[in-house]
């Protein structure tokens, strides 16, 4: 069990709504970005002198660029429907972690500088000057929002606190107050090509290693190619997939599916990262710059299709924004959506009966499925709304004998965030991450008790990393979290090609 310097909440069968405890998480704030991580993104290195004026100007600029911000800051009626929906409020009890409480941190400044009521009667409408204290609150609480959009599901006007958090981070970046974790990572993508800073040659080595491992295990030559010009499919996947458990087992699975489908595919060292942290910091410019790498890679490698690996926010950027940021995609094969999710790809093959599974390979597990927020509430898979819920579950049912869903109130579009999304997956926020995971883990613990669930599958690199880290705080095992395509990988029955070395192939053990 991991050592904690804070109280880890007790799991309860159903998540209870706590009593409001003001300032309970006021001490939580991530490390501030140093000048060297700010510059590559085009932000000032430290808090600028006239920060207040510049922040207000920036807010004015964003109000003119984003209808969401303008409408949402005006429309809230303080009905309270969102107040018990955020996993961070449920886990920390801090009222500024209630979605409307978080929005109000910006709304009070907006009202003061941009509305008549706030200019003339600030007390009456809860308007406040943008002081250093308010800025500190912003830094703390806009980094306690994982931009999961659960609040927007229940708000009568669809007010999406993620939009407010993104704008707040953009404003803070513009006056030199950046978050180290996100900004350093975006810099790495620009410089090296991926979040983890893995250079091209290291990727080539890793992938060769994978090919050997898979051959040793299955006796089939499954390829894990990179930078192969003329391949049919470009696979863009989070860099965690290249080596970390349980991510890499997913990547192994994608390769096996491509192999079984008989299509050529390739990774790209130029776009060796699906993640796009530009979204987390609300920066259209940086998000676009990161997304452009995928266009460049697709053109350079002359591929016909683009498929994304398992990653939640990356799928949001891919599905919802890629056409906007890096389209049009008229040079790709028009018979397929651009981009496609690996789950859509696998599911299509299953539907066509082109994959063979031995489900008993997963009989040591009883599976449940964690809907990742960005997939669930900010994107789609397949042709019909809600495909993002059905397709992954259909894949699990095709590959496993034992599957149970968690409580209905905690899955599909009501799913709880893992607690580590939105650019918060950093050790300096571990208390927040552990507490924010409580609602999800309450539901998980419940199916473990009642249905004997042993493992939870996910399709998001952040979710997988977050659970690996926080499960032990709650007395669970870190390897209870698995990649969805790890289940596919276990169960898929591969046919050998001509170049497979017959005598080396061990009989299926």
């Amino acid at each position: 069990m991991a050592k904690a310097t804070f109280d880890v909440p007790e799991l309860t069968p159903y998540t209870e709504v706590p009593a409001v405890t003001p300032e309970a998480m006021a001490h939580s704030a991530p490390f501030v970005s140093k000048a060297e991580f700010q510059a590559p993104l085009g932000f000032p290195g430290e808090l600028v002198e006239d920060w207040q004026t510049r922040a207000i100007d920036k807010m004015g600029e964003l109000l003119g660029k984003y209808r969401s911000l303008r409408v949402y800051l005006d429309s809230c009626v303080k009905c309270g429907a969102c107040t018990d929906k955020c996993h961070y409020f449920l886990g920390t009890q801090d009222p500024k972690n209630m979605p409307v409480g978080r929005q109000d941190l910006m709304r009070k400044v907006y009202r003061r500088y941009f509305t008549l009521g706030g200019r003339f009667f600030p007390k009456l409408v809860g308007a406040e000057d943008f002081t250093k204290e308010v800025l500190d609150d912003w830094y703390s609480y806009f980094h306690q929002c994982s931009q999961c959009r659960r609040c927007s599901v229940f708000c009568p006007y669809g007010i999406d606190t993620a939009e407010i958090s993104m704008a707040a981070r953009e404003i803070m970046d513009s006056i030199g107050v950046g978050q180290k974790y996100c900004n350093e990572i975006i810099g790495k993508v620009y410089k090296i090509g991926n979040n983890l800073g893995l250079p091209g040659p290291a990727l080539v080595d890793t992938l060769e290693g994978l090919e050997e491992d898979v051959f040793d295990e299955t006796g089939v030559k499954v390829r894990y190619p990179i930078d192969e010009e003329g391949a049919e499919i470009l696979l863009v996947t989070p860099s965690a997939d290249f080596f970390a458990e349980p991510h890499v087992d997913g990547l192994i699975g994608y390769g096996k599916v491509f192999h079984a489908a008989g299509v050529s595919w390739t990774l790209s060292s130029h776009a060796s990262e699906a993640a796009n942290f530009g979204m987390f910091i609300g920066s259209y410019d940086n998000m676009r710059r990161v997304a452009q790498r995928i266009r460049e890679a697709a053109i350079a490698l002359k591929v016909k299709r683009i498929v994304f690996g398992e990653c939640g926010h990356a799928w949001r950027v891919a599905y919802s924004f890629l056409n906007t940021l890096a389209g049009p995609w008229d040079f790709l094969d028009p018979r397929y959506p651009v981009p496609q999710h690996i789950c859509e790809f696998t599911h299509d093959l299953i539907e066509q009966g082109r994959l063979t599974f031995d489900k008993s390979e997963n009989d040591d597990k009883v599976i449940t499925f964690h809907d990742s927020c960005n997939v669930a509430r900010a994107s789609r898979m397949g042709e019909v709304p809600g495909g993002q819920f059905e397709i992954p579950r259909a894949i699990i049912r095709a590959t496993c004998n034992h599957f149970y869903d968690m409580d209905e109130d905690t899955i599909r579009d009501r799913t709880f965030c893992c607690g580590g999304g939105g650019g918060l997956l950093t050790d300096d926020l571990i208390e927040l991450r552990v507490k924010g995971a409580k609602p999800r883990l309450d539901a998980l613990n419940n199916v473990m008790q009642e249905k004997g669930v042993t493992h939870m599958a996910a399709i998001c690199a952040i979710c997988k990393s977050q659970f690996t880290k926080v499960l032990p705080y709650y007395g669970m095992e870190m390897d209870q979290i698995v990649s969805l395509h790890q289940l596919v990988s276990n169960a898929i029955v591969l046919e050998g090609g001509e170049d497979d070395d017959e005598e080396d192939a061990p009989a299926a053990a």
Partner: protein
Amino acid sequence: MAFLTHFYAVLFYVAAFVLVSGLVVKVVRYARTPAPLKIPTTPAPTSRSGVALRMTREVVLFESLFRGNKWTWIFGWIFHFGLFLVTLRHLRYFIEPVWAPIALVQPFGIYGGIAMVIGLIGLWARRFLVDRVRYISSTSDHLMLALLVLIGASGLLMKFVFHTDVVAIKSFFLGLYALDPQPLPADPLLLLHLLLVALLMIVFPYSKLLHAPGLFFSPTRNQVDDPRERRHLAPWARELEQQAPAASSDPRG
């Protein structure tokens, strides 16, 4: 008497002007501000007609709120539906001849008035009883409820207890159209009722009452889920593309 009539005439001209111009300014600004990215809360409809249906469910049934909180939904819906009936009922003071549907709705308008006040009291009670809602309530939230309760209560009192001369009121308002105000009855309750209504009209475009037009402009609710099929580009994002060619390596330039 003449002073009162003129004061209220001017008040309602001002209130109507503020309400209409304020709302037009706001709505035009909402409409002109682009939504640069596709952000519907999914699962979302994949067609325009699907979105129209989603919006209708939100406006008529408060669907999201229903999923979010049943108590707030019940009181909120009772209040708004009551308000809707009351508004219809009041139209008879402003049109001549009175349309048949408006005449039909008259008795229901009275139930609407009662429902409206009950709903408001329920909503107000939540602001005291639920600690989370207490925390987020500011003075203006309480004042807004007080204003509406007072409007409703003074209206109901006129209906059931202290009757007033509705024929005179109607000719006062019809007179306003012709810039020829007719005498307004000097009943204190009526004067209070009208004063508060004018106040409501004036604060409308500068307060949270903007939720009514706001809902129609909310991108998480009014966008179609079709980003892979249709390229969505805001004007300012298009400019960005023209400054720095989107993909330097694009063979088509």
